[in-house]
């Protein structure tokens, strides 16, 4: 904390008036502006909070905001969230990938066949190395399929809509061929941990560790950024905003961990483990949720801190300018599709682990959920605009709607109606806000 105080006095000297920085800001708008908060992301968080509160009020028995439901929500959102982070980069470069559901099926079937049929022939079922071999092959296959489609888009010049529409048909068909349409089950027991389930969680203590590590990282990143800007003598964010932002984000992380940790292992399992009845053991975060969070962090890093990410946004903003700036636009496009494929492979692993089975109908309709999550999260089809965090929030919004409506016993067709309306509404709002901002 001493570090923070040192820079606080340093900043106060910069501004020349020590007391002024702590003056209460006049309006919400000025708070947002001087705190340099991403207004769009903040708006999405507010929208998500509204959805949650409304569902809590109207679900029978007010069950929406129970630890159990939110825990389930986190697991259910993770598969779409993993893929939506990749879809952001695809859409930012003015492309689209309609094949993700079908690629998920073919990769899932191959991973299923490897761990259920091929590897057990080599060694035995449930061999400790099986899960990693199956996973690595699945990721490589996903990346290869994605990159292959990317090459046709970038180097041959066929529109991505067409290439991946073809892929949508081809890969689904090939997924069927892997096992002649039969279900492959069960999965390797280690592999199944990827999907969460009763074993695939990290428990209460480790969840706290994850939360605390996240908080330390938030503080460290803010400090590094601030010190860097101070070194060049740039204007710094006001101290109240800096501290406020860190406190709010760390508080949110720890509150989420605390609340999710109140989802306990079922009483039957407690008894099986020979513990006294009534003992509360936290499930803790599910492994697929951790995977999705890690993917979101890594993808944000790639999108905002690496040259590749900068080129993706450059191409999306102005393809000709990117080319004239000397960016290798074609290989960049191929990489976005390869990365998308890799993430589809990862999502497929989580999905077959959750189902404990690989089926050729895996991921049917998933491409639309993934695209919708990215778009609800603020990714624009005109290119150049979209964030990873937004897409993850978008996935959470979509899954929250579905989860809430299931609790309300609304049937599937009506659910689709609602999700469809929300999708169009979200983009409409975004368009209006952006048009106003442009004026």
């Amino acid at each position: 904390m001493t570090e923070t105080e040192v820079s606080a006095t340093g900043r106060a000297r910069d501004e020349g008036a020590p007391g002024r920085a702590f003056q209460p800001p006049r309006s919400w708008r000025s708070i947002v502006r001087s705190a340099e908060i991403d207004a769009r992301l903040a708006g999405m968080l507010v929208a998500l909070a509204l959805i949650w509160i409304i569902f809590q009020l109207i679900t029978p028995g007010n069950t929406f905001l129970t630890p159990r439901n939110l825990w389930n929500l986190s697991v259910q959102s993770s598969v779409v969230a993993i893929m939506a982070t990749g879809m952001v980069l695809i859409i930012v470069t003015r492309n689209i990938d309609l094949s993700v559901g079908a690629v998920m099926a073919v990769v899932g079937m191959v991973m299923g066949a490897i761990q259920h049929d091929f590897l057990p022939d080599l060694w035995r079922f449930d061999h400790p190395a099986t899960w990693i071999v199956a996973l690595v092959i699945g990721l490589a296959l996903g990346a290869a399929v994605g990159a292959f489609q990317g090459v046709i888009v970038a180097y041959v010049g066929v529109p991505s809509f067409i290439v991946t529409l073809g892929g949508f048909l081809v890969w689904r068909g090939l997924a069927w061929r892997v096992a002649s349409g039969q279900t492959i089950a069960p999965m390797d027991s280690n592999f199944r941990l990827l999907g969460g389930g009763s074993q695939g969680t990290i428990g209460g203590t480790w969840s706290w560790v994850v939360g605390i590590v996240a908080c330390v990282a938030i503080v460290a990143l803010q400090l590094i950024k601030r010190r860097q800007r101070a070194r060049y003598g740039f204007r710094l964010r006001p101290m109240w905003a800096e501290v406020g932002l860190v406190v709010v984000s760390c508080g949110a992380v720890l509150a989420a961990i605390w609340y999710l940790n109140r989802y306990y292992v079922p009483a039957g399992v407690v008894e099986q483990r020979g513990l006294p009845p009534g003992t509360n053991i936290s499930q803790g975060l599910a492994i697929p949720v951790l995977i999705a969070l890690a993917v979101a962090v890594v993808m944000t890093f790639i999108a905002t801190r690496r040259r590749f990410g900068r080129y993706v946004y450059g191409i999306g903003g102005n393809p000709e300018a990117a080319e004239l700036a000397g960016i290798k636009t074609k290989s960049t496009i191929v990489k976005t599709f390869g990365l998308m494929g890799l993430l589809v492979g990862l999502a497929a692993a989580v999905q077959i682990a959750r189902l404990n089975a690989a089926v050729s109908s895996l991921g049917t309709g998933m491409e639309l959920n993934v695209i919708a999550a990215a778009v609800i999260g603020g990714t624009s089809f005109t290119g150049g605009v979209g964030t990873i965090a937004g897409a993850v929030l978008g996935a959470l919004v979509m899954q929250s709607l579905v989860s809430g409506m299931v609790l309300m016993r609304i049937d599937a067709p009506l659910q689709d109606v609602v999700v469809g309306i929300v999708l169009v509404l979200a983009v409409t709002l975004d368009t209006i806000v952006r048009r106003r901002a442009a004026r």
Partner: protein
Amino acid sequence: MIDRSGPPLVELRGIRVAFGGVHAVDDVTVDLYPGEVVGLVGGNGAGKTTLIRTLSGAHPADSGEILIDGRPVSINDPRDAKELGIETIYQTLALADNIDAPGNVFLGRELTTRLGNLDYTAMEDATRKLMSRLNPNFVNFVAPVQSLSGGQRQSVAIARAVHFNARIVIMDEPTAALGPAETAQVHGLIRQLKEEGLGIFLISHDIHDVYDLADRISVMLQGRLVGTVNRDDVTVDEVLAMIIMGKQPGEVTQRDIAELHEGGPVSG
């Protein structure tokens, strides 16, 4: 004075570019010496931009040679051109509208930390220093450039061209979108770059612009070079006659000039 004793900084020799049978540029030869401004003028579709795109690597020539310091070079894409110290300010500015000013200045040539991560603060710092020289009124270093004014966007495009120690700068209509004050600023900058010994190709449809700034003027008409003249040897009317009628300065009669002026303000 411009030293023309050595080999030219750039020579485009016998350049041809065809688009589907139409010769956009047909056997054009132009050159440029250090510290010199060569104006490239001509009407719409004369082939000025197409010619210059072969030098900036945006579009390869079908035939012809490009020589830098008297040595033939091959320029196949914008990266080759930049490596040879050729920077271009395009008429469209070629900015990524969704990215901020420092991001555009360094687009394709980002500064990174030792670990290869983008060094945002270093890029912003370098851009601030550049702008304090080029356009002191420029203050918005964090907003996407789409929210900036035409003049500010032009400053970003110019900053990008001059930051990387260019030897040759190509400016395609650099003042077309600017007001009088900003135009004067760009003119000042062109003179400054010339003082520093850079060679500048200045493309413009505004003959007065070119006449003020250029040492020599190359005139193109329908893809062909009409001729290259020393600015001091010709009048504006003679250049106009070259642009519109394709006539050499000596061939222009009083009647031609009268005709030019009857035709109304043709110089745009």
